[in-house]
């Protein structure tokens, strides 16, 4: 059974601990500019929104790659880039509708979230549970629970 990253921007404070943790795991240094997950600040709305690859079931990046460098990690469902096969052509970055696969100038390869082999560092580092790693079939469970509670309260009123 696979899990998915579930993101609740309402809980995010914009601290970037997720980016810091992601970069340490992937690059060996604290370097948010190399993080696979990014937190966007929407100043005008006072909102902080983390965003990363959602691991499409039919992944456009994977389909577009001419060297078959992107494969599926069967254990987690993550779409994973092979640095050996990637030639840095960036076609995947064009194919991805969400912008979550990007080129890294230092290595000449593309990088994307690989779910850290099933133990995503971003979710572990998040101090407010804005990022959680949950049953892939039930990413809506918390929202559904909240809605159920609200509906029940309305019915009892």
């Amino acid at each position, binding site marked *: 059974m696979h899990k998915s990253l579930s993101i609740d921007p309402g809980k995010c*404070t*914009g*601290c*970037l*601990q997720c980016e*810091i*943790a992601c*970069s*340490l795991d992937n*690059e*060996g*240094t*604290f*370097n*948010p*500019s*190399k993080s696979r997950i990014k937190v966007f600040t929407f*100043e*005008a*709305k*006072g*909102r*902080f929104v983390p965003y990363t690859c959602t691991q499409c079931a039919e992944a456009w990046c994977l389909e577009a790659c001419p060297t078959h460098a992107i494969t599926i990690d069967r254990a987690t469902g993550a779409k994973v880039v092979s640095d050996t096969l990637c030639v840095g052509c960036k076609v995947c970055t064009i194919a991805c509708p969400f912008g979550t696969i990007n080129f890294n100038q230092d290595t000449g390869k593309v990088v994307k979230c690989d779910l850290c082999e099933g133990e995503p560092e971003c979710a572990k*580092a998040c*101090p*407010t549970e804005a990022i959680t790693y949950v049953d892939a079939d039930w990413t809506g469970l918390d929202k559904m629970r909240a809605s159920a509670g609200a509906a029940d309260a309305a019915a009892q009123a």
Partner: protein
Amino acid sequence: MAWAGKILRVNLTEGTCKSEPLNMEWANAYLGQRGLATKYLTEEIDPKVDPLSPENKMIMTTGPLTGTCASTAGRYSVVTKGALTGAIACSNSGGFFGNEMKNAGWDQIIFEGKSPKPVYLFIENDKAELLDASAHWGTSVWDTEEAIKHNHGDPQIRVASIGISGEKGVKYACVVNDMHRAAGRSGVGTVMGSKNLKAVAIRGTKGVSVKDPKRFVQATNDAKKVLAENAVTGEGLPAMGTQVLMNVINEVGALPTRNHRDSQFEGANDIGAEAMLKERESDGKPNLVTNAACFGCTIACGRISEIDRTHFSVAERPEYQIISGGLEYEAAWALGAATGINDIEALTFANFICNEQGLDPISFGATVGAAMEMFEDGVLTTKETGGIELTFGNAKALCDIAELTGRGEGFGAEIGLGSKLLCEKYGRPELSMTVKGQEFPAYDGRGIQGMGLTYATSNRGACHLRSYTVASEILGIPEKTDPLESDGKAGLVRAFQDATAVVDSSGMCVFTTFAWTLEDFAPQIDAACEGEWTVERLLEIGERIWNLERQFNLAAGFTGKDDNLPARLMKDAAKTGPAEGKTSGLDTMLPEYYEIRGWTPEGVPSNETLSRLGV
């Protein structure tokens, strides 16, 4: 490791940027940030120099842990000789700028000289250049930051800049980064403006490394857990911000009101945390939009606010019908209690102006409070104020004077002198609630005795952040002491001063000390930095920093006589509340403090103390 190992030296007169290695001997003796930059400054400038002359230098400085995963580790400081005080100045800021500087590979940037025309420094990792800022001169912090990002086509650039107030020489101008985080006190932005330096814009992508990453992650995780489980850092600060203090401090009778004439404010309930959470009648929304974190901070005390769109300050001003940095306790106190104004929307507007034009809201609000007292005494009239009825409680006057001061125009230019010079100018020096030229923050030294000694002895002029004994005297952290008792406070102040100097030199935030002691800092620093970093070593570094700062001030011309408080705190007893009848016990605390510090009765560090510390 931890330190980037490099300093950028920017000569603004010559227009040059040069890289040089960090002096690791000094880093080992002073850790980083506040301590290390103070060491550089004291070695490189004459303490007697005019703060606004090209001979003064300004250092932007990170700590060894800045940019790491430690909680709150995104801090940087601006160290210089302060424009407001003429004393050593070190103002600390959060946001995201500090991490960017460190990730670009620089521990410090030393600015020297004065540029012949307005410039900004642009850094992309190793590359640093001075660029023309004539298009940004005369514009606000907000416009400058946006324009620079736009010009470079890179929204990920981080910017620290000054507003118009800093260009115009307002004595307490800040350096503002990330739109509303500020190196706020002592006029560090004024010094920046005097150098014709409008902004520093950085993009850093090099990464920050530590000595033992595995041990470091473990140590920082342990420390984060302590923060999460602490009532103040885990619950109070994220939910209410520092504003959680407003009612607490008012109840203990230590909320300075109307230029310290009173020590309790009848409007405290209207300007504190609860008021920011209350749904408004006009739009059903609270003033507070959300809390927000600085880089790496797992506390997230920052306030993000929106002004009531029907409020007089913004009703006809759509450009201020926005969401921006809201009221912290200090700002709410200075803009509110110190001026007797209980209109939280007006305070939020004045706070937005402070963000936009780079004003220290503490010094600004306190100076307005002093001016209001002179206005009520008839020393100032509408002739001097340009028609503004500067009476206590006048919210409209506060909003108008904030805009004028932000632009250094009209009577705003006089408010921009700061309370000391303003009160001297109008022949009422006794009405200036300052030490070493810097306005008091939000605690009354009569109701919280340790804070009186804190202000009197603070190396950067009156300041709560040099030894926050409120933690002990009011909140019971690490242990409760009686706020009305002056006995024992000398030792308490000294202990807080030394520990805080360490925190300010690490890259982490002093707010962690609601939960952490040096026992929590040491393992994090030790896992990050080469060498062995024990609590004992850190404490010695703290004491060394304090004495070095003291030596700078003595060489600048200050003496023990400047470790004083205004007569209002020494002679006029508090009128109400638990501190009723109390004055400050500074006269007995100060000699004891000097002795505990190993200083002479005149307040000069003894040769023995200096040689023990290697200062």
